[in-house]
């Protein structure tokens, strides 16, 4: 079965169309039958008419001859009784001629011949009537003279010739008609056989198209199934990859907590021991170098600790549970108590709802955001407000301050781990805080972003939750 592979053939439509054609064909056959039946009927009619015409032609011939012989008898005998039949034959002749005119009206050849024969007949009847009259008045001798010129005989021969021609034509018509009839029947039989064959072939084709359509559909389904299977395999592969990478990350966290800390502690402790023991006994430069080494080791320690905290958000975070956001904020403010007092920060908040979250991680978010608001304060004491608005399916929190603000071009960067906008001398810190917040919020299915033009910053975040205000 050679079928185009790439082109989509509408097999079903083809099948339906072919089947419809197969159904329609018998009706075409019926119509053909009806019309051929009409033709057969017409042919039969013609045949009858031809036979009638032949009959009438025979009558005309007989009557002419009868009148002729009646006239001759009277001419010879003068016996009036011999003429009895003459007017009857004349009437019959006229009737037959009229009948012939009717029967041959649709055949121009016969009509012309009839037109030719009619005056001849009239002339012959006239001449015979004239002869009879002559015999009555002039006697046998006068009539014999008239007969002797053989004019009448020629007339009669002409008439018979024409009539014979017409008979031959009608005979030919009989043959033509019966041939037509046979052809019609033959044609009908052949058409019937052909029609049955065509219907069978069309039905077969329809079935074939239908089957191909089904095949095509099955193949399409199989293709879809194969593709789905492939996609599933790809997902499983990438899931396995993800699990492996999570394991690697956990491994890294463990390495960082155990194995990196140890040598770092050695570096830090012994530089400090050096400083302790030899402070002032070396020169000022040596003291400075020791200071750098100690500071570097401490910073590295903090970075490792921050990295660990970052990786523990997902590896050690608890499942979200219903908890009071207000309690989490209170915990955060308690942890920040010292700095809040030092900076005389004024912190206010809306009534806070209950949310579905890991309470200690939520506290961590508040602590980082409020802590940042205090850390990046403007010249006046920090004013910080925490708001909460319910949106469909989640709570929308915002921590707004009157601090130094953040240039919009840094709004993306600040959420990346260890990204800082200031030197350590200006503001201390590793740059973990906002990355931590983002990881926590995203772990809970929320979103965090910043709104800040010039002065003042608002950190917004959402937490999907059905919780209400307590």
């Amino acid at each position, binding site marked *: 079965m050679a079928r185009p592979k790439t082109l989509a053939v509408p097999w079903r439509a083809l099948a339906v169309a072919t089947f419809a054609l197969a159904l329609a064909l018998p009706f075409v056959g019926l119509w053909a039958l009806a019309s051929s039946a009409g033709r057969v009927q017409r042919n039969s009619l013609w045949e009858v008419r031809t036979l009638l015409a032949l009959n009438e032609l025979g009558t005309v011939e007989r009557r002419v001859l009868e009148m002729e012989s009646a006239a001759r008898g009277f001419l010879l005998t003068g016996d009036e009784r011999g003429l009895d039949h003459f007017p009857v034959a004349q009437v019959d002749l006229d009737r037959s001629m009229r009948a012939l005119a009717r029967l041959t009206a649709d055949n121009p050849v016969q009509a012309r011949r009839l037109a030719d024969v009619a005056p001849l007949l009239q002339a012959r009847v006239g001449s015979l009537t004239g002869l009879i009259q002559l015999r009555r008045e002039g006697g046998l001798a006068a009539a014999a003279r008239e007969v002797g010129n053989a004019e009448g005989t020629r007339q009669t021969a002409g008439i018979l010739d024409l009539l014979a021609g017409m008979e031959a034509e009608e005979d030919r018509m009989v043959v033509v008609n019966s041939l037509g009839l046979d052809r019609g029947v033959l044609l009908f039989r052949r058409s019937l056989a052909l029609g049955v064959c065509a219907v069978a072939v069309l039905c077969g084709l329809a079935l074939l198209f239908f089957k191909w359509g089904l095949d095509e559909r099955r193949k399409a389904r199989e293709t879809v199934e194969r593709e789905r299977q492939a996609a599933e395999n790809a997902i499983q592969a990438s899931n396995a990859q993800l699990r492996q990478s999570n394991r690697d990350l956990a491994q890294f966290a463990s390495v960082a907590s155990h194995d990196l800390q*140890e040598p770092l502690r050695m570096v830090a402790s012994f530089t400090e021991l050096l400083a302790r023991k030899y402070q002032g006994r070396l020169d000022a430069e040596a003291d400075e170098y020791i200071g750098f080494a100690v500071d570097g080791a401490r910073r590295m320690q903090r970075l490792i600790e921050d990295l660990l905290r970052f990786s523990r958000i997902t590896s050690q975070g608890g499942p979200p549970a219903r908890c009071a956001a207000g309690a989490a904020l209170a915990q955060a403010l308690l942890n920040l108590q010292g700095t809040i007092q030092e900076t005389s920060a004024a912190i206010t908040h809306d009534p806070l709802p209950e949310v579905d979250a890991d309470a200690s991680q939520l506290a961590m978010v508040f602590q980082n955001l409020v802590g940042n608001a205090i850390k990046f304060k403007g010249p006046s004491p920090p004013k910080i407000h925490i708001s909460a608005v319910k949106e469909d399916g989640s709570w929308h929190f915002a921590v707004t301050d009157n601090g130094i603000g953040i240039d919009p071009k840094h709004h993306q960067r600040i959420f990346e781990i260890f990204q800082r906008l200031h030197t350590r001398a200006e503001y201390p810190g590793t740059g973990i805080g906002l990355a931590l917040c983002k990881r926590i919020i995203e772990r809970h299915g929320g979103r965090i972003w910043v709104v800040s033009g010039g002065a003042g910053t608002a950190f917004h975040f959402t937490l999907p939750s059905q919780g209400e205000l307590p």
Partner: protein
Amino acid sequence: MTPSVASAGPIQILLVEDNPGDVVLTREALRECRISNGIHVVGDGEKALAFLGREGEYRDAPRPDLILLDINLPRMNGIEVLGVIKSRPELMGIPVVILSSSSAEEDIIRAYGRHANCFITKPLDLAQFIKVMGAIEEFWFTVVKLPGGHP
């Protein structure tokens, strides 16, 4: 109660530590706290148990008043050593302070699960480390009342 031998004279501390750096640091810290004498150092868990059992080269070893036990030790780690100490009636009375360079939750849980007397994360800061050592000394030798008593 466990049979115990009250040690006369200076306080005896057994430090089980494989890292020479930490040995030096601990010695320094203890010296700053003026507990320089009576510090015995072994480098792995098996030696620690030999010391406590007075086996082989440790035939004349004193019974320590306090054990400072590192977790990451070769051959037999600190948690295993702790398990053995706390399962022997003659040793279970000796306070064991677990020292770890990590603050990993699972280490802490395992240590207390084997009856460690306390778990301390070695501070990065030297000053802090010295302070911690001072606190250990202060707590275990002056605050706490131990079986057998101590002068």
